[in-house]
């Protein structure tokens, strides 16, 4: 089913028993129900560069939005990841999918996640009612912030029809600073030092067994200055600038490291300084420590449950691909109860994405 507008979307939902919500299909999530595809809810309806605001249908392809923003030298600063390489899917990333998964790339460490840039949503709940929350302005505390709730709700609370996002100017240039030969622990210390400096690092990654990388962005002279300061502070050396640097971070963003992998892929989030400890406990095939240590992408042998090996640590793990355990982090009983309560309010007939998020 492929509604062409919000009214059709509401009608479909009112008559449906079980639905699997799909945007561009880049995640390939398997759950029961008829596929409800949001791709036709597409198109940018408002773009105001001077107000840093964009409003678009939930099915709008990311590439269309990026092309439009680029004309005014702007971008989605939270750097959504394209999951195709990692998951071997061919679909195209949509805005709705990005919001539903609260998808954000390496720049999340400095600039925040999709939720931090989401200004408003329109969605249809499980009753078939059209609901809006938030709006299109950057500061809005009118009523409850359901915008944040919808971000990362994986289509379990409603089907988004329109989203409104904050955009930001593209910096004049960027540079990658690199250091090799570090253990995860050493690398994490370097990344933390850089992130705790005034030099506005917007990417902080360690490829386990490979390089430790920092990114800085801004005006040419400022990037040169900060590269020098960071080298003096923690020893990382300026590696490449401009388009070469952009290419590196595009690959990091889209997790190309794991392209073609036949193993299970996990995403672990935890306190950045705990990243190396988690890696030490796990028998990883390949790993990338992003967000200064706070987001670790892991390639594990098929069927391994990483959670079993992280007892006593505070973390959350999502199984991105494979069979090693529950896909979403199991929630403590008191939080699970609140979440189930919200889900029952938004989707009382339990028709959306059954089996996702517990």
């Amino acid at each position, binding site marked *: 089913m492929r509604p062409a507008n919000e009214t059709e979307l509401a009608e479909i939902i009112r008559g449906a028993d079980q639905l699997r919500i799909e945007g561009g299909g880049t995640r390939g999530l398997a759950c029961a129900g008829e596929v409800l595809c949001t791709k036709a809810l597409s198109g940018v309806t408002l773009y*105001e560069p*001077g*107000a840093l*605001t964009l409003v678009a249908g939930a099915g709008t392809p990311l590439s269309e939005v990026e092309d439009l923003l680029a004309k005014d030298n702007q971008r989605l600063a939270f750097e959504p990841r394209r999951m195709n390489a990692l998951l071997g899917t061919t679909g195209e990333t949509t805005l709705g999918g990005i919001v539903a998964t*609260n998808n954000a790339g390496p720049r*999340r460490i400095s600039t*925040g*996640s999709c*939720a931090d840039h989401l200004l408003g949503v329109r969605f249809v*709940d499980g009753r078939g009612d059209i*609901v809006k*929350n938030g*709006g*299109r*302005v*950057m*500061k*809005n*505390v*009118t*009523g*409850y*912030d*359901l*915008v*944040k*709730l919808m*971000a*990362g*709700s994986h289509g*379990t*609370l409603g089907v988004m029809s329109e989203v409104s996002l904050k955009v930001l*100017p593209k910096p004049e240039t960027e540079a990658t600073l690199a250091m090799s030969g570090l253990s995860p622990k050493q690398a994490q210390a370097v990344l*933390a030092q850089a992130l*705790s400096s*005034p030099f506005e690092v917007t990417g902080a990654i360690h490829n386990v067994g490979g390089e430790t990388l920092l990114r800085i962005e*801004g*005006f040419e*002279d*400022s990037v040169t200055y900060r590269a020098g300061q960071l080298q003096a502070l923690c020893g990382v050396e300026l590696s490449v600038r401009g388009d070469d640097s952009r290419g590196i971070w595009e690959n990091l963003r889209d997790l190309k490291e794991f392209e073609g992998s036949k193993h299970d892929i996990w995403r672990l*989030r935890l*306190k*950045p*300084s705990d990243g190396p400890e988690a890696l030490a406990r796990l028998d990883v095939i390949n790993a990338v420590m992003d967000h200064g240590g706070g987001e670790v992408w892991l390639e594990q042998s098929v069927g391994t449950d990483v959670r079993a090996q992280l007892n006593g640590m*505070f973390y*959350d793990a*999502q199984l991105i691909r494979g069979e090693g355990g529950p896909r979403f*982090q199991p*929630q*403590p009983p008191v*939080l*699970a109860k*609140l*979440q189930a*309560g*919200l*889900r029952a*309010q938004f989707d009382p007939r339990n028709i959306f994405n059954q089996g996702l*998020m*517990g």
Partner: protein
Amino acid sequence: MQMPQPDGRVLERKAQITARLRAALPNCPVISDPRELHAYECDALTAYKCPPLCVILPGTTSEVAIALKICFDENVPVVPRGAGTSLAGGALPTADSVIIGVARMNRVLETDYANRFIKVQTGVTNLSVTGAVQEEGFFYAPDPSSQLACAIAGNIAMNSGGAHCLKYGVTTNNLLGVTVVMMNGEVVEIGGEYPDAGGGLNLLGVICGSEGQLGIVTEATLRILHSPEGARPVLIGFDSNEVAGACVSDIIRAGVLPVAIEFMDRPCIRACEAFAKAGYPDVEALLIVEVEGSEDEISHQLGLIKDIAMKHNPAEFRESTSAEESAAIWLGRKSAFGAMGQINDYMCLDGTIPVSELPFVLRRISEMSQEYGLDVANVFHAGDGNMHPLILFDANKPGDLELCEEFGADILKLCVEVGGCLTGEHGVGVEKRDLMTHQYSDTDIETQLRVKDVFDPKWLLNAAKVFPLDSTQSRRMQS
């Protein structure tokens, strides 16, 4: 403005309820003396007052839990209170309510510079959070003008912003985790020590900005950042509001993203200047634009801003030349409300509009000012469109407050009409409660009420706020 009739069943049991609270909380002040209760009868929205049944000032999360559990059992409404600086009446009590104030819970619990967070009890003031980490070169970014007095508890309840959120975001963007006590006394940990901690639905995002209606937040983990190497404001004066508005839009479009762009009009400039002696020029509209970085980075950005500003023929362009001058410039801006208060009674509004609508909205406000016969001073965060029109009125003149409120409501409706919202950072409270239907449909509101049903099924927590009373009546009456 209407508040619900107090529950007679609660009022007649006042003595038993306070006795039960005192017995269960031996180390915690339980205030019920009518003279002492005066201090809690309103917050910074002083037009409305009502003493509560009693006030509890817990020192620990478990005392908050004990107090809430008793109120839950006794079906007593509860009004959470931070420092009582709400401009929207968020902490306004009803006669049958117990105020639970976190003012005594003001300890810093943990600082972690390597992971860039601080854990505090929520009675700490906003400014003291930065105070706790600035020796190490760090700061807490959200900076409401009331930051000397306002508590983190209230910042979280209202999702407070400030002048510098153009770059650093508002409270919700800087909040990592909370300890929250539910109305039934259950203590819940949400989030953690890193962004989006714990997985699952984003409950933290819902708690933040819920105006004390979902639970009482007693501890918070906040993101801290290393301070920039330096910062410098520049003053740009214009002969017209429209041109100043166009300049703001051009600066943003040009790809320079200052940390703050503040806007003041002539009445506000004059009042602030008289108060803070910041050296503000006497112009129609004044922008304070601040950039950060090293000396060279600052000079470069200010150069770009100057180029843009010059295209708009400013009446004045003046860079701060010293730290003292910079401090004075900000003191003037942050004292705006206090400065206006010295010369007149005023009502402070808080609508947000799309930046592109600035010139139109300012023109309409000035036309409406003529129609209502009340003066308006404008001060606002221009970069993000968050306006604070201050309507001047005479509290001693019969009918003036009502006229002022009507004018204020018209301005906020205008904000919604042009694509904005009723409140950008102060919250709805009681002040804008009855305007919610202008921004949200019945379904939109009902969906929000259902969220409260999950967290506070008895509708006891701050329940007479945020939503129009008739939309919540059946829920509030159930207990």
